């Protein structure tokens, strides 16, 4: 099945699924309320957004300089930096590290880049044990599913379903209370932190000035992942840089506010190296893998370059009427929602993924929610334009050309009106069936009857 027909079929299934709708509503019910409360606590959220947008603009438009500075600082303190142009290279670099360290087990904290390059699948095929430590990621891993949402991976599941899952997979689920279920995961994970050979993380921000990688999380799983195993690997997109250490004073509270309506995420941790002389714990080796994977193609598109400003807070997903109705898995992409619809055509091919930019109401809610002011809904329009310019649909082109001829010639227009009026009764016979050329539209909609007398005729004949 093509990506577009898969999207259409899942979308029509999910929009009719009342259970799905109620779960998503429950999950997002309080989001906007608490987020707006946190935004209101800012003295000026709008000025903060503008500054964040400018800071990211500066970072992305001098990306080469910042990456050179970042990696020089990291390497100066013993961190091994690797560069990967694509997913295959990144997987090979990581595999090579695991082989060198003779590793068997890997504990992972949340990293969307690892979803992007399908890392878990590749490593499991090579025989490694990979455990996701973030609770939501752990749940979807047990279900052999992709994360449903970039920040809340398991938001599509109820506590009852999670209880059944834990009972089946772990043989341990005392009740369906979130507290009890969380404690099951905590117990399972504890020994894994202590015994894993390698800790694997993503990164939220990379600070060029000081050579640090900042990781944001609530659970403490990334802290443990970066503290206990002897080897640490961090995989991160090249666009994550911020110029200065102090920029975090703005970005950390904004990420928390936009992402989850929190004043600050529970743990924001900056790492600048493996265990240094005189330090009592931490990994002996730290490998940082910088991933391009067609981000440079997006960078080359000056019009949409600001979509690389994304800090993956998920705010645009949370407010998007399309996301809320079709759900995260329907997109079939690593990054879903408005930002996913904008960047996926660049990362994975315009003609295969252009349909995501059509699945939009263009309400602009995403642009308004974005803490770094990415012009998301205009980018959706630009994707549509680019898709039709690069490969215009034949029938669409023909239809508009015919319409232009008819509409420009009064004689043709009045003939078309007459034909329309005469054939109108026939339409009701085929409405919504395979014979109806306008099926996609008329399946769920009524065509208003065409009056015998047009406004023009009425005006001419009025007394």
């Amino acid at each position: 099945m093509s990506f577009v027909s898969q999207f259409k079929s899942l979308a029509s299934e999910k929009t009719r699924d009342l259970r799905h709708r109620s779960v998503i509503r429950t999950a997002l019910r309080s989001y906007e309320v608490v987020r707006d409360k946190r935004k209101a606590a800012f003295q000026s959220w709008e000025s903060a957004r503008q500054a964040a947008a400018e800071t990211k603009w500066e970072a992305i438009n001098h990306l080469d300089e910042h990456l050179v500075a970042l990696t020089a600082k990291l390497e100066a303190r013993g961190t091994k930096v690797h560069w990967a142009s694509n997913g295959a290279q990144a997987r090979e670099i990581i595999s090579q590290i695991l082989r060198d360290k003779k590793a068997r087990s890997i504990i992972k904290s949340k990293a969307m880049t690892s979803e992007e390059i399908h890392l878990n699948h590749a490593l499991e095929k090579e025989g490694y044990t990979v455990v996701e430590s973030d609770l939501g990621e752990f749940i979807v891993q047990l279900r052999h599913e992709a994360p449903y949402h970039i920040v809340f991976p398991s938001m599509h599941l109820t506590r009852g379903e999670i209880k059944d899952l834990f009972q089946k997979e772990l043989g341990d689920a005392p009740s369906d209370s979130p507290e009890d279920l969380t404690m099951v995961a905590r117990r399972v994970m504890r020994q894994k932190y202590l015994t894993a050979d390698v800790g694997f993380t993503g990164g939220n921000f990379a600070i060029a000035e000081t050579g640090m990688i900042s990781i944001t999380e609530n659970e403490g799983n990334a802290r443990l992942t970066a503290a206990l195993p002897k080897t640490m690997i961090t995989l991160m997109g090249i666009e994550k840089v911020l110029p200065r250490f102090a920029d975090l004073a703005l970005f950390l509270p904004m990420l928390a506010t936009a992402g989850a309506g929190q004043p600050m995420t529970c743990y924001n941790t900056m790492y600048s190296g493996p265990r240094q002389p005189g330090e009592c714990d931490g990994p002996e080796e730290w490998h940082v893998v910088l991933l391009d994977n067609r981000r440079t193609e997006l960078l080359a598109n000056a019009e949409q370059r600001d979509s690389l400003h994304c800090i993956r807070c998920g705010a645009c997903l949370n407010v998007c009427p399309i996301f809320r109705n079709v759900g995260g898995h329907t997109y079939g992409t690593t990054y879903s929602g408005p930002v996913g619809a904008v960047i996926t055509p660049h990362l994975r091919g315009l003609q295969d993924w252009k349909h995501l930019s059509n699945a939009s109401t263009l309400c602009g809610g995403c642009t308004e929610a974005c803490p770094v002011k990415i012009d998301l809904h205009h980018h959706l329009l630009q994707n549509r334009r680019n898709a039709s310019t690069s490969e215009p649909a034949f029938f669409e082109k023909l239809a508009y050309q015919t319409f232009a001829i008819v509409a420009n010639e009064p004689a043709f227009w009045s003939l078309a009106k007459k034909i329309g009026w005469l054939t109108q009764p026939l339409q009701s016979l085929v409405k919504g069936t395979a014979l109806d050329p306008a099926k996609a539209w008329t399946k769920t909609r009524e065509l208003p009857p065409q009056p015998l007398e047009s406004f023009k005729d009425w005006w001419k004949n009025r007394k």
Partner: protein
Amino acid sequence: MKNEEIILSEREKILGRIREALKVSAPLPGSHSEVAAHATTESPASHAREWLPSVGASGAEQFDLFAKNCADLKADFQLLNNREELPAALQKIAAAEKWSRIASHDGELSNFASVSLGLPVLLTDKGYDVQEMEKCDAGISECDALIAQTGGVVVTNRSAGGRALSVLPPHHIVLARREQLVADLPAAFALLQQKYADNYPSMISFITGPSRTGDIERILVLGAHGPKKLTILCF
């Protein structure tokens, strides 16, 4: 040798693609006319203090704000009158939770606190067995700063006994002096920059409340993987 060449070339390829892409400039965000001028001279984020949540001018207001934020975060904040009240406050918690052993690190305050408890102490400074730390009931550490604006605690692996002490035991006790309270996030970053300059500890962590998750139906649960409890004792 061959491997090294590939790594170098991949780096050069990526940087090359970036430089090629950046030959075309992208429009500046927003419509601020002064953007271009100050983007090159100072950080756009350098005025963050004016936009972040307000903190109050006086020390007393800031302590009140810190206490309120801690309450919202479900962290226990106790403001003591002097250092001599510290042992009693700790003993009260130790008795209530029936601690039998603790983890801590070498430091003036942390030594004073752990000695006063009279319990077996695992010290992290010269290396330690993580399985032993896992058996500890609490981790007692010093800190670099408290932040009024967020109710947060700043620790580094240098000031707070390593990377794991503040996150592995189920209860993290933070010891702080009143003068360690800073007003806001920009002040905390400035302090770290001033204190550590060009030799940063390899881990700096802003801890804001006890470990938490909302991954099951967005319902808050404390103690997901890190400490279930966070207590800040300040004098």
